[in-house]
């Protein structure tokens, strides 16, 4: 539901000629502190931009459920609801 809203908002911005950039859903703007948006950042932390929303959401849900080994993401994923994860995943999937 929220993901749909974010998607519609993103479309509206595109349609209006992008007077301002679509803002990230709650929580998403923090991710780029570790997951570089610049592919040449020189980090071994995988990028999120342009990955499929399904893959991102699956990974988050597995971290949250303790089914995927991690260093930090297993601790962070527990702070987000399924809806929030969906919205964050959709937003990163839409970034180039």
């Amino acid at each position, binding site marked *: 539901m929220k993901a749909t809203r974010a998607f519609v908002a993103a479309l509206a911005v595109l349609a209006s000629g992008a007077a301002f950039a679509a803002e990230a859903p709650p929580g998403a*703007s923090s991710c780029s*502190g570790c997951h570089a948006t610049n592919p040449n950042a020189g*980090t071994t*932390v995988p990028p999120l931009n342009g990955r499929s929303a399904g893959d991102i959401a699956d990974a988050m849900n597995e971290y949250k459920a303790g089914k995927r080994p991690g260093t930090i993401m297993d601790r962070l994923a*527990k702070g987000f609801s399924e809806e929030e994860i969906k919205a964050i995943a959709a937003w990163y999937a839409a970034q180039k």
Partner: protein
Amino acid sequence: MRTSRRQFLKAASAAALVPAPALAQGAGPKVVVIGGGFAGASAARFVKKYDPRVNVTLIEANRTFTACPFSNGILAGLRDLGAQQFRYDRVAADGVVLAYGTADEVDTQARTVSVANGPKLPYDRLVMAPGVDLRFDALPGYDARAADIMPHAWKAGEQTLLLRQQVESMEDGGTVFIVAPANPFRCPPGPYERASLIAYYLKTKKPKSKVVILDAKDTFSKQRLFQNAWKELYPDHLEWISLSQGGKVNAVKPGEMTLATDFSDHKAAVANVIPPQRAGVIAQKAGVADRSGWCPVDPVTFESKQVPNVHVIGDAAIMGGMPKSAFSANAQAKVCAAAITALLRGEKPVEPRLINTCYSLVAPDYGITVAGVYKPANGVLADIQGAGGVSPIEAPRSQRELEAQFADGWFKTITGEVFG
């Protein structure tokens, strides 16, 4: 006087809305940011990114920024200062106007900021990210001059190099003391990472020496992880003396190189004194700091609870559960930028979620972390229960190596986002 000035400014800004040859910055709303650290430089860039119509000016005293995270590596000879330094060229390339100078007065009625020997800048929204001021009035004997003998090295740069030089030239067999302050202060795990990396250096290069932490606290960030690692790596080279063991330093004598506690005077070969702190002085002047010395803010917009149209982010602000870290500062900046651009459009800011992640190195290949997820609750940012926490207490060494690698990646990523 103030009213007429304000009316004048109103008239002036109304005039600016009349189609006319654009001023240097155009006619959009004005956001001024004070302080070009992880918080301020991020806020300036993201306001511009989220709404390019906004005229953004970043006031910063230095043309080169020296980052604190990872600067403990310099003390152990693992890193050069140059690896910590960044310039504002890419920030300016995004359309942010750089005003190099010290912000020395904020008129919150007229909504202007004065830059020393520079312009008076009007704002619709002001972001204050002044970081911390080291208090040279809080620990008897420790003033700005004492810091030339007993460096704090709590703002990276010359002080870091001075402490490095002292540790490097110390004769083997000496004791390096680190005086750790009570909460709150910038970078809660910082003194313990510092002790670890200095111990690493001593163990390798000066094995008869050691590092002793004199602490004004009984507990600290990532405590069990640090203590377990110290037992394993530095049993003969690192000692922590807590508050209840008499670790609180009440006075220092730089001339004699002594640190006085309730129980004894410790004679130091090298003394690193990290004094108590408060929000940067401009926050006190602008009236956004409360009696604690720090700045209470709304947890959705980070607007000051004391002064309207002024937002405070980063180390200077009281952020509830969120620690004073570079990651927090950058995360807060992005949320603040989104809130400000929403407010300037007349929209209601969205309730945010924020993350903090903080890496510490106990050795070059031994990393540990604390992480948290936060949301607004009861007027502050509160930890989301069940999320976050520290690295596992029991973990194979490969996990610590992986976290050390990710620490390095984190530094590159965040400095890339803020300055690159």
